[in-house]
């Protein structure tokens, strides 16, 4: 049984229908890359899981339980944590307070100590008392990831974590995430930076215009320059 399973999912924003009969299955402790062009529906797929999409239909189970009628906070409290595309650090709270809120709101499992995050992200240690809104994009991304990790998720959803980051920061983030995926956590990651995602992931799904286009192992995908050309409009992966 998969940890997360989407079957025949349709997603809507008002009258516009953006996900079409989508299927996706993530096994426990797997790392899955969710790839596709801009506007393909990657973020919307994650929103389907977190319950923040305005309307969805179809099957959605987590750990064998139907979660399609759960509220956003109920889904979160089952251990599904999102690092959103826009980072969404609390702008008026300090770095430290952002982490404390994450710690305080962890339920059903032990939160990881805030101090541990400062070891993983030394840059945040120096910014403890800075407000979220005064952080650079990279710092906000670190904080957003740290906040999710504090809550010891069973399923971590990462929405384009490298978007807009300088290459050195991307390398730092890669180091952190490659340690995260070694642990007892399942990860679903979307990326435009295909190399980044494929280096972390074991399997991949490609979606196009809101529908499944392909899925398989990363090893297979790396042999398929045609797929990358067709669906991701980037060069081959080396």
């Amino acid at each position, binding site marked *: 049984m998969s940890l997360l399973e989407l079957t025949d999912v349709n997603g809507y924003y008002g009258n516009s229908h953006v996900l079409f009969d989508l299927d996706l299955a993530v096994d426990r402790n797997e790392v899955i890359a969710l790839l596709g062009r801009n506007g393909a529906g990657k973020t919307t797929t994650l929103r389907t899981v*977190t319950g*923040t999409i305005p309307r969805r239909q179809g099957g959605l189970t987590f750990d064998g339980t139907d979660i399609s009628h759960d*509220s*956003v*906070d109920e889904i*979160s*409290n089952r251990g599904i*944590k*999102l690092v*959103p595309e826009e980072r*969404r650090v*609390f*702008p*008026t*709270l300090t770095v430290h*307070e*952002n982490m*404390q*809120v*994450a710690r*305080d*709101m*962890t*339920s059903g499992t032990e939160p990881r100590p805030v101090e541990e995050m400062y070891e993983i992200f030394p840059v945040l240690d120096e910014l403890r008392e800075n407000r979220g809104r005064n952080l650079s994009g990279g710092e906000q991304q670190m904080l957003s990831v740290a*906040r999710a990790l504090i*809550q010891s998720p069973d399923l971590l959803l990462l929405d384009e974590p490298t978007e807009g980051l300088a290459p050195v920061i991307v390398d730092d983030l890669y180091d952190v995430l490659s340690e995260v995926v070694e642990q007892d956590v399942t990860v679903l990651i979307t990326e435009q930076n295909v190399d980044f995602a494929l280096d972390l992931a074991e399997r991949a799904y490609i979606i196009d215009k809101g529908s499944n286009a392909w899925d398989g192992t990363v090893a297979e995908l790396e042999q398929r320059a045609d797929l990358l050309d067709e669906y991701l409009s980037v060069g081959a992966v080396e």
Partner: protein
Amino acid sequence: MVSQGLIVDQIITGLSIGGRLFLIAVGLSLIFGVLDVLNFAHGALFMIGAYVGVVAVQSLPGGFWIGLVAAAVGAGLVGVLIEIGAIRRVYDREELDQLLVTFAFVLILTDVVRFVFGTGQKTIEAPAVFRGSIQLTSSLTISTYRAFVIVVSVLTLAAIFLVLRTTNIGRLVRATSSDRDMAALMGVNVPRLYTLVFFVGAALAGLGGALAAPTLSITSSLGDQVIIRAFVIAVIGGLGSFGGAFVGAYLVGLTIAVGSLVVPGAGELIPFVAMIAVLLVKPEGLFGGVEA
């Protein structure tokens, strides 16, 4: 020529009006700051608090103190009913819809109170300990009750700041107020938190009403006058800012009291002029943009 003594007297009066106004403005600000809803029914909650105070004083020995608690809890619970029953359903609607829903409760609550208590005015006296006055200097006294109201308003401000700044729940409220969708994604039950905040805001209005009861003549339309002033304060101080509500309340109290010396009969007008000036010059309010 106005004598110095009279001016000082009016300043003290202004401060006590300010203390009373603060208690209502701060709840309005709290609810707006967190829920993003302008609660027009806030004046009606103040009025309910005043009636609870009246009933307590008239029916129980030591009723004043019980009345303060009962007014806060009673108005808070009415607030919870309003929030769960109606306002919760319009969070995602336009501001006008929200305002109309809360306005409906002004009419409902006013009518219910009129039905129960009639149209006559009610007055009560402050408890005996507060009947005297305090000699500040050889020529200056302040009524003990007024001093008490000022102290309560300062303590309330301090308590709100402390809770928001230093407690886990306060931090959670600030986080949710800055991004409720992200808070929900982190596991916060936002509707429940909103209900709690609405309870606290409404309870502050009820407390303000019961505290003001000995200094006012109470009718079912008491809330109308109070809500207008609370809005003026909120606009001057900056909606959602507690420091702003505090300064705004005392500014309005002082201008009403002192202004009536300068322009007899027009003291009530001056805060409105000030509000228009603030809206033109600094539309976000004196303290707008600075969060608690």
